[in-house]
């Protein structure tokens, strides 16, 4: 390296190169800068401004201060959408990650046919966010759907799960758990980084599998668990398609599947109440950012980095 730099200096090329870098960077980054400004930063600030206004696309926005934010906390449907989303996230994400870790543990040990199992379990992750799968779910958990047919064999009379206010959200949670394949693959990659000799040493010392799991696997895997947790929480908070399709766009029955983003969509693009929708959007950003920050702070106490 130093030889190359020396040669470059003697040719007087070094200064030219450094000068050229700034110009070249401007060219290479031009599309990204444009996108950052026009498609991301400007709309981000515009929605912050709009969140303090009353705006319906037809008339110019009129400044109303914090009214939209006050309205949120007095709006029973907004409170419902927040509660639905929190329940969905806090229940389905941990279950999904547990399933992912459990399967990754089983698949880890030089298993024959590993690649096939991995593909089969991963496939739902790729399809899970599609409209087709949401439609399928609507049918599988419908009144005379697949689940009730199977229950019928055991003489159990099922509900119309997706149209029952107590169970509709549950079917969406199951859908999210069903897509455990992506975090499973991340766990698989993480498990492979743990040196096998740790387990050997522990089992020679007579440590049980359970102890090995809690004292070797969990601590050494904790950065990966943390990474998966942050990603899946952020993703789950923004879920939209499943609830939209299963409830036919309403968030029903009785608002039991009214995801936050679904209510935002209804306000912004059905009633064209864009000021209110912008306030909701900024509140969502604050929740997601806050949740991620809490995660990072809490990680100091349980995530173990083996440097």
């Amino acid at each position, binding site marked *: 390296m130093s030889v*190359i730099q020396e040669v470059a200096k003697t040719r007087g*090329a070094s200064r030219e190169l*450094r000068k*050229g870098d700034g110009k*070249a960077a401007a060219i*290479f*980054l031009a*599309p*990204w800068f444009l*996108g*950052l400004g*026009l*498609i*991301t930063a400007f*709309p981000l600030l*515009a929605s912050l401004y709009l969140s303090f206004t009353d705006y319906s*696309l037809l008339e110019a926005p009129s400044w109303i201060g914090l009214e939209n934010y006050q309205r949120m906390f007095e709006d029973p449907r907004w409170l419902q959408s927040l509660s639905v989303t929190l329940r969905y996230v806090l229940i389905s994400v941990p279950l999904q990650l547990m399933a992912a870790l459990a399967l990754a543990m089983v698949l880890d040990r030089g298993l024959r*046919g590993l690649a096939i199992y991995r*593909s*089969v379990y*991963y*496939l*739902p992750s*790729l*399809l899970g*966010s*599609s*409209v*087709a799968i949401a*439609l*399928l*779910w609507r*049918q*599988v958990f419908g009144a005379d759907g*697949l689940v009730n*047919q199977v229950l019928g064999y055991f003489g159990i009379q099922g509900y119309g799960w997706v149209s029952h206010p107590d169970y509709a959200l549950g079917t969406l949670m199951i859908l999210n758990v*069903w897509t455990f394949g992506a975090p499973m*693959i991340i766990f698989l990659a993480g498990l*492979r980084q743990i040196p*096998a*000799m740790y387990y*050997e040493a522990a*089992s*020679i010392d007579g440590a049980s599998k359970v102890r090995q799991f809690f004292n070797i696997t969990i601590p050494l895997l904790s950065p990966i668990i943390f990474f998966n947790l942050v*990603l899946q929480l*952020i*993703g789950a*908070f*923004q879920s*939209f*398609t499943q609830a939209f*399709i299963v409830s*036919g766009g309403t968030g029903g029955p009785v608002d039991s599947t009214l995801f936050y983003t679904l209510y935002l*969509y209804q306000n*912004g*693009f059905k009633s064209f109440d*864009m000021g209110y929708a912008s306030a909701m*959007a900024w509140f*969502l*950003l604050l929740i997601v950012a806050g949740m991620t920050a809490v995660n990072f702070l809490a990680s100091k106490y349980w995530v173990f980095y083996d440097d």
Partner: protein
Amino acid sequence: MTDTPVRPDAPTQTTTKPPVRERRSLSEVAAQVPDAPRRRTVGPQVRRVLKHVLLIGFGLIMLYPLLWMLSSSFKPNEIIFRDPSLIPSAIDLSNYGEGWNALLHPFHHYLLNSAIIVLGSVVGNLVSCSMAAYAFARLKFRGRPIWFAIMLMTIMLPIHVIIVPQYILFSELQWINTFLPLIVPKLLATDAFFIFLMVQFFRGLPKELDEAARLDGCGHGRIFLQIMLPLSLPALATTAIFTFIWTWNDFFSQLIFLTRPDMYTVPIALRTFIDATSNSSWGPLFAMSIVSLIPVFIVFLFGQKYLVKGIATTGIK
């Protein structure tokens, strides 16, 4: 995010196979130690078979809804709800014919619309994200760490925070009900995720290559096109595959920007099935759902290697 950035193509499998083998041989050694419990020498085979039975059973339960949808798409409507078996008594293609023409436009119209958006997005992401990644990975310019941090933050930004002003902007430009709001942002590298992916990859390529090329008088354009890109095919493939699947499945932005039936894409068209047909005609709906999943499934079959590596290194879905 990850404490040790791994190149997307870094073969995690090959580097980690030896420990697995070693572990097995060591446990065999341990089994020969007189004090080792006896079940260790008899149990493993039974256990292994049991494990495979459980894993296959679990896999079947997971895939059952998909397989059931596939088989139902070949069954006449009256039978779908009475017969949960997977093998249809006769292959009946009438659901496909009926579904294909059930909406305002024949289904290939929607397939074509989706294909246009997917193609535009894939090309856009490949070009714009690789360019930005080259700058972040190889060029020295003022404020690089700050811009890089901003780029990383935009990955986490929920689209819902910017969608309202975007809608207003695009309707000012008369772009609603065109494909432009869905393609142009990709040409401007707004899927920053893929910039990150390619930066990671470029950083893993030996720097000596481009330094030598620069000494020979190569400009950055040529280094990028003739040295970096040809070496980065795995990262480009991962980007193309994920862009394909995400765009094909995307519902939210297509729902917002495409409201005229002749502009509908596959997901939006499928959604109108619920309104257009009565609840009793699930057969045609399933048939078209299957059609909509086929492209993703094909990409999955042929792109698995890149999908798995892409996820393992960057943690995407």
